[in-house]
């Protein structure tokens, strides 16, 4: 018994150590970003604890590119996508979950197909479509291909289907329309799903790069990711301290929000049944 106990302790110690090691490795790029952003460029490659602290890199990055504008563009983009996704996906998911109509299963299969064939890989044809619509280089164009999300419809449908029909009947007796029913019964009960899906959507579109790169070409529309890539791809060589200051500046708010509310996120994922 005692031997088993000791073995267990050793096991715990080993696991703890391994977890710490992996966590350290995973945090390393972020730690490096913080290190370089707050120290002069000469310390990009030297890790000396007595190195002087400075905020110059932030000032330089701020002056060198319109990051405030990029940030506003990204916030607008992410908000627009999220609102549209919520509206479109809710309506579609409700239809799939509660109505019987011809073509339902075929249409649902077509929706699921988007889980696989994401707009990310259809860049060539989507670019042609956007050009035909005359929307090249607009924030709307960055969002359009993503606002009807197969993943969102699928998730919300799962949630809606788990809501007991009896609640429908009760609300219906009170004279609610379908929209009223959706608004008063379904949406409130699906809150964790909205939260979980919203998080996935925001982090995905905040960091999306390829499509915005293709479809934007001016300061007024460029999101943070494309702005950062233009900023770091100048002829004069890499300046890690300034690039990392810019990265922290633009990802900071999202990073902090996600880190503070992590526990809630996991719970919402759990309740939403995404697992």
């Amino acid at each position: 018994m005692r031997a088993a106990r000791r073995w267990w302790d050793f096991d715990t110690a080993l696991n703890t150590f391994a977890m710490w090691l992996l966590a350290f490795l995973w945090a390393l790029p972020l730690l490096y970003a913080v290190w370089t952003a707050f120290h002069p460029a000469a310390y990009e490659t030297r890790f000396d604890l007595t190195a002087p602290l400075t905020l110059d890199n932030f000032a330089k990055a701020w002056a060198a590119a319109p990051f405030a504008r990029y940030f506003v563009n990204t916030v607008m983009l992410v908000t627009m996508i999220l609102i549209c996704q919520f509206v479109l996906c809710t309506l579609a998911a409700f239809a799939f979950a509660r109505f019987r109509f011809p073509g339902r299963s075929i249409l649902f299969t077509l929706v699921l197909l988007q889980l696989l064939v994401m707009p990310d890989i259809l860049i060539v044809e989507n670019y042609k479509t956007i050009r035909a619509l005359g929307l090249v280089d607009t924030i709307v164009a960055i969002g359009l291909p993503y606002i009807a999300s197969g993943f969102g419809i699928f998730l919300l449908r799962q949630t809606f289907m788990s809501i007991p029909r009896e609640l429908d009947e009760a609300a219906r007796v009170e004279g609610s329309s379908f929209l009223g029913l959706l608004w008063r019964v379904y949406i409130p009960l699906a809150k964790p799903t909205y939260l979980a899906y919203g998080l996935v959507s925001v982090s995905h579109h905040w960091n999306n790069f390829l499509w915005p790169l293709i479809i934007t070409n001016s300061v007024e529309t460029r999101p943070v990711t494309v702005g950062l890539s233009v900023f770091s791809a100048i002829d004069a060589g890499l300046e890690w301290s300034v690039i990392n200051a810019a990265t922290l500046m633009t990802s900071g708010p999202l990073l902090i929000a996600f880190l503070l509310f992590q526990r809630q996120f996991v719970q919402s994922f759990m309740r939403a049944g995404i697992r």
Partner: protein
Amino acid sequence: MRMLSVRNAVATSALLFGVATSAAAVDLEFYFPVAVGGKAADTIQALTDEYVAANSDVNIDAVYAGSYKDTVTKALTAARGGKPPQLSVILSVDMFTLIDEGIIMPFDELIKTDEDKAWLASFYPAFMENSQTGGKTYGIPFQRSTPVLYWNKEAFAEAGLDPEAPPANWQETIEMGKKLVKKDDSGNVSRWGVRIPSSGFPYWLFQGLTTQNDVTLANSDGNQTYFDDPKVVEALQYLVDLSQKHEVMAPGIIEWGATPKAFFEGQTAMMWTSTGNLTNVRANAPFDFGVGLLPANKRRGAPTGGGNFYIFEEASDEQKAAAFEFVKWITEPEQSAKWTIATGYVAPRADTWETDTMKAYTTDFPPALVARDQLEFAVAELSTYENQRVTAVFNDALAAAITGAKSAEEALAEAQKKADAILKDYR
């Protein structure tokens, strides 16, 4: 934010100059890219504003379109959508692409007076090579650069070399390089002799070597390449030998972006990189450094790079004339001196270097003159029809040889075959 205030400024100045002129005023849209830090955009904006303030018959909307790649994409997209700008700065090597798309016009139609002809003749011939084809001028040099040699004087002194004398030719690069290589106790190299970056677009610096070996990579019609010429093979073999045989350069692909940092860190005693890095090196090198011409072999040589002005075919005659006047003004010595000082680009005309502004600058910072001196030996940057594809094929071949996957001869022969296949439609 800045864009908004500029738009307002333009609008305000239009108001100030009254309704009478605005009826006749020509509106121009002008795209420009920025490939070096933030100051360049402000300078172009300031110059444009100055011009508009002095010429009430024209309104210019200067649009910062991002990187070179963004700008050409934006211009092509706008042209296909039927709304191109009237004027844009785009890479000189994109000339054939723009001609192929049928969206730019030759300047020859606009050049009428002797004065205009003299103006055209005032540009360095090295820059005009990338601006003319088939006897016509399609581009006017504006933000142009060329690679130069930077060396660490302290490292030279430490290795027992004359800190004021960089290698003058290929052989000296090897000999000096061997002395400059420093190894630590465990036999690992802590300082290399020379660093010629080869990531991303290795063809550009490699073109320095081919020019020095007295061979061109493509004809001026842009439809024939000479990648498998024995002299090109020889140049590539030299580049490969620098690391493989003579061990004066680090093996494998050398990252372009990390090169200045490697120089500052003392990881290499010499580097080849663009004149666009002058300001950066001046600000960050913790030691005394020199800037010199690239070493010679059969001759001296270097490619040019950077962007030209293009006027678009779709513009009205008044717009074309107004755009032409603006291009003439902004390339005048005083204006181009301001531009060169602000950005580090090489002033494209000899008389710019004679202005007082420029003289004061070069007295203060003599290395800026090196780029000018090298122009005498410089040639057109590799440019063909389907430019991106052809250079990609060539870049791949260079990378294959540098990493030892293929021999120089084999890699270049394959590249030539692929380039022939791409260009056959244009002959």
